[in-house]
């Protein structure tokens, strides 16, 4: 054999590649699970491979799967762009002069002017790929190839799915591109949507196959609505608070592009908790919140009542806010190169800066191409320096591994503030590969760091491949919160107005438990909180983790309750096991509410109790407080978006009417915005040919 070849062969031999035994074991056990699933579902037809994996698989599979989804997106995306390339470019031109940030792609194009001509030089390849306009160009050349390859590899049964995905990618791309600017217009111009966007609208007309609309590649955990429970059998309901609001902003982003959000994107409690309600606030930090209870007739069901439990966290006076040490961990990979991602992120962080005290420190780490510290810990008083660092951020390059997250935590450690807020704020579009190869490892890394006092918050940006589940998991394990930022006003809400609650926890592991009295309640149903339900015995177990409440946070939980022996009861009484009619409970009490929480620096919980009695009830919807009516309208809307299983014939118009009656003063316009969203949902629903 030729000596060069021989040398190569020897080198291969010398390169002993030992797989990591743990990874190997994991892969094999994942495959075994897949094997058993395959066996079981051999008869079931028409389920795509991925669905099955997702349902059955452990975390690791989900991650691989996720990556695979991500990967396949990129090529489909490219293909999708082929159809709309010129439209997209045109749109950018139009918006460019108004919003400087939108010009980004062109800038980076100029930075790499001759990319296309040089063959096989990796640096130039990178530039070629990360520049969206070039990406479009690449996509134009070989869409057919990609499709054919897919067919060959996956077998004919997958073709339909692939094609469907291609279409949907194509479609959502065409839809969202112009719409982004539409949103932008709203932010920049003020309250009313600018009619300018109409000039772009025709691009959405020649779009094929409406039914794939809005399915996107955004990933959400599938959740079933909480079922109706019978008080006699199951009188106690237990759950953890949830102060996230990501679901609301995601829904808004969807509706603003005239697409109904997918069902699983809607977490009703997050919609309800998006709004601030005027609950009684405690005056002492030692008892961080009070329970507010009210009962009104259910707007969507005359035969039932709606029990609302609201708590509002104690608000820290400004002088008492602990000092903060924040590390921004910013995903600046190529995928962030969109007007609603990096530029929006940059402006969001600028807003956050305005809320900091002079002694607070800020550092910035980016991960793209190579992870890098953009800004060493810097006092917030040196605003110019921080702003300059933010402005220097450019999207480009691929996502670089574990390094980013490690550097971020190191910096947080470096300027650790004893007794203060030490937090890493991860901003990403979900297309991030943090390099630790599975979610479990990542989770435990974040958990370990949490124990050293550094918490993690996640800010989600952009659409298209937003990975909601991962974001939620990360934030929950880092004791932080996950928010989804779709507009600058949302950034203002999360980072400025709610900076207190976002940053300063006043109580942790907050759990609620309600015991219903069978004398007054026959059935009950917890609206929302599906992912937060706890077992009855978890309530008193301080080891069981639950949600945190920040300063000034409001949390609302709604129960739909049915009186005993009511015609509206969904469950028929038993014929053979007729219940005894004896009740021990007081006939004036609906139930008993218990709240357990821990103060931020304590490991033992305290208890707050409250009787829910007839004194809390009002007889008509109109007699209820504005807040109660508004919360009910939001809950009704959430349920409608999730398919309206329990809402009878209550429709979007009813939601609007109810919300309007509960709008109140609405100083920031959030409630008015909600009402507009319902209107958008009405028209989006009309466009939607298939119910998902």
């Amino acid at each position, binding site marked *: 054999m*030729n000596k*060069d*070849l021989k*040398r*190569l*062969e*020897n*080198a*291969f031999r*010398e*390169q002993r*590649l*030992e*797989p*990591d035994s743990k*990874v*190997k074991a994991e*892969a*094999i056990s*994942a*495959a*075994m699970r*897949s*094997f*058993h699933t395959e*066996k079981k579902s051999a008869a079931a037809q028409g389920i795509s*491979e991925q669905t099955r*994996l997702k349902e059955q698989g452990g975390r*690791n*599979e989900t991650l*691989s799967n996720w*990556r*695979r989804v991500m*990967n*396949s*997106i*990129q*090529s489909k995306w490219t293909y999708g762009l082929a159809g709309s390339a010129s439209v997209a470019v045109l749109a950018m031109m139009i918006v460019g002069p108004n919003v400087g940030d939108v010009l980004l792609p062109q800038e980076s194009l100029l930075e790499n002017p001759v990319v296309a001509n040089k063959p*096989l030089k*990796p*640096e130039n*390849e*990178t530039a*070629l*790929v*990360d520049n969206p306009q070039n*990406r479009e160009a690449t996509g134009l050349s070989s869409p057919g190839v*990609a499709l054919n*390859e897919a067919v*060959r*590899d996956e*077998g004919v049964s997958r073709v339909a799915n692939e094609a469907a995905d291609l279409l949907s990618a194509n479609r959502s791309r065409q839809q969202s591109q112009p719409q982004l600017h539409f949103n932008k217009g709203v932010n920049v111009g003020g309250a009313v949507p600018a009619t300018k966007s109409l000039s772009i609208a025709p691009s959405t007309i020649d779009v094929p196959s409406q039914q794939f609309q809005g399915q996107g590649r955004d990933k959400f955990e599938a959740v079933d609505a909480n079922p109706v429970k019978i008080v006699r059998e199951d009188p106690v309901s237990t759950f953890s608070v949830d102060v996230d609001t990501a679901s609301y902003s995601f829904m808004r982003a969807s509706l603003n592009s005239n697409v109904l959000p997918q069902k699983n994107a809607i977490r009703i409690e997050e919609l309800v908790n998006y709004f601030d309600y005027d609950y009684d606030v405690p005056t002492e930090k030692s008892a961080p919140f009070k329970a507010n209870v009210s009962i009104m007739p259910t707007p969507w069901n005359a035969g039932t009542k709606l029990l609302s439990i609201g708590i509002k966290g104690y608000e820290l006076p400004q002088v008492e806010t602990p000092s903060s040490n924040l590390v921004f961990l910013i995903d600046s990979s*190529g995928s962030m190169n969109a007007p609603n991602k990096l530029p929006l992120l940059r402006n969001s962080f600028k807003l956050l800066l305005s809320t900091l005290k002079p002694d607070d420190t800020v550092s910035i780490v980016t991960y793209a191409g*190579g992870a890098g510290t953009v800004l060493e810990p810097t006092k917030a008083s040196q605003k110019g320096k921080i702003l300059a660092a933010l402005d220097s951020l450019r999207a480009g*390059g*691929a*996502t*670089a591994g574990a390094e980013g997250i490690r550097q971020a935590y190191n910096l947080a450690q470096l300027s650790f503030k004893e007794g203060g807020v030490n937090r890493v704020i991860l901003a990403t579009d979900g297309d991030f590969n943090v*390099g630790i*190869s599975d979610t479990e490892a990542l989770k435990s890394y974040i958990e370990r760091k949490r124990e050293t006092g550094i918490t993690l918050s996640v800010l989600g940006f952009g659409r298209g491949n937003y990975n909601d589940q991962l974001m939620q998991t990360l934030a929950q394990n880092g004791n932080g919160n996950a928010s989804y930022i779709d507009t600058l006003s949302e950034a203002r809400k999360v980072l400025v107005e709610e900076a207190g609650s976002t940053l300063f926890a006043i109580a942790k592991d907050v759990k609620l438990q309600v015991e219903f009295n069978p004398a007054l309640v026959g059935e009950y149903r917890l609206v929302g909180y599906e992912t937060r339900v706890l077992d009855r015995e978890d309530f008193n177990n301080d080891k069981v983790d639950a949600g945190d409440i920040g300063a000034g946070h409001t949390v609302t939980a709604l129960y739909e309750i049915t009186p005993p022996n009511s015609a509206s009861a969904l469950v028929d009484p038993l014929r053979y096991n007729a219940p005894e009619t004896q009740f021990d409970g007081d006939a004036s009490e609906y139930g008993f509410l218990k709240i357990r929480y821990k103060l931020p620096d304590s490991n033992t919980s305290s208890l707050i109790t409250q009787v829910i009695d007839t004194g809390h009830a009002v007889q008509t919807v109109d007699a209820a407080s504005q807040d109660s009516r508004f919360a009910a309208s939001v809950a009704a809307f959430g349920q409608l978006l999730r398919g309206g299983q329990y809402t009878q014939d209550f429709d979007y118009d009813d939601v609007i009417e109810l919300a309007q009656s509960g709008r109140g003063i609405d100083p920031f316009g959030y409630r008015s915005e909600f009402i507009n969203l319902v209107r958008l949902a009405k028209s989006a629903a009309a466009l939607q040919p298939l119910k998902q």
Partner: protein
Amino acid sequence: MGPEVSDEALVKLAVNGDGEAFGHLLERHYDLLFRVAYRFCGHREEAEDIAQEVCVSLPSKLKTFKGQSRFTTWLYQVVVNRVKDWKRKQSTASRLQNAYVEVEALRQEEAAETSRNLKWLEELMAQLPEDLKETAVLVLGEGMNHREASEVLGLKESTVSWRMGELKKALRIMAREEA
């Protein structure tokens, strides 16, 4: 069940629902999947992911193995196709570039113990065009003859031979540059 049971027999059992047989197959061939994936993509974690994806997809894919070729040949095909998919779906070179950057960093850490040959190999793999690289991995790395490699890659045998010739030329040029 000892190693004397043939792959093909295990496949038959596995297709008929024998989990143990399936497990044996994986045990036996995971290393191959990982090795090939690694050599094609040059990135450990990606290779682990690809290997796992292939493993997870096997239960449904096995049915398509008709036994015209050896099982390993078929398996090579599956993993090679998967890697190619992966590459296509990558923002092509960007991630790859990145991968080799990471390899480079690792290599520097272990520079003391890494032989000159290994270093050369990594650099070479980063430079070679895809078609030559995949051919080299199979023929030289996996010790296949041209016919087997052509079967895995879905090419004519003569193409593989031609590529090996090209590879030889490329190596010679690089060797000259090196010197």
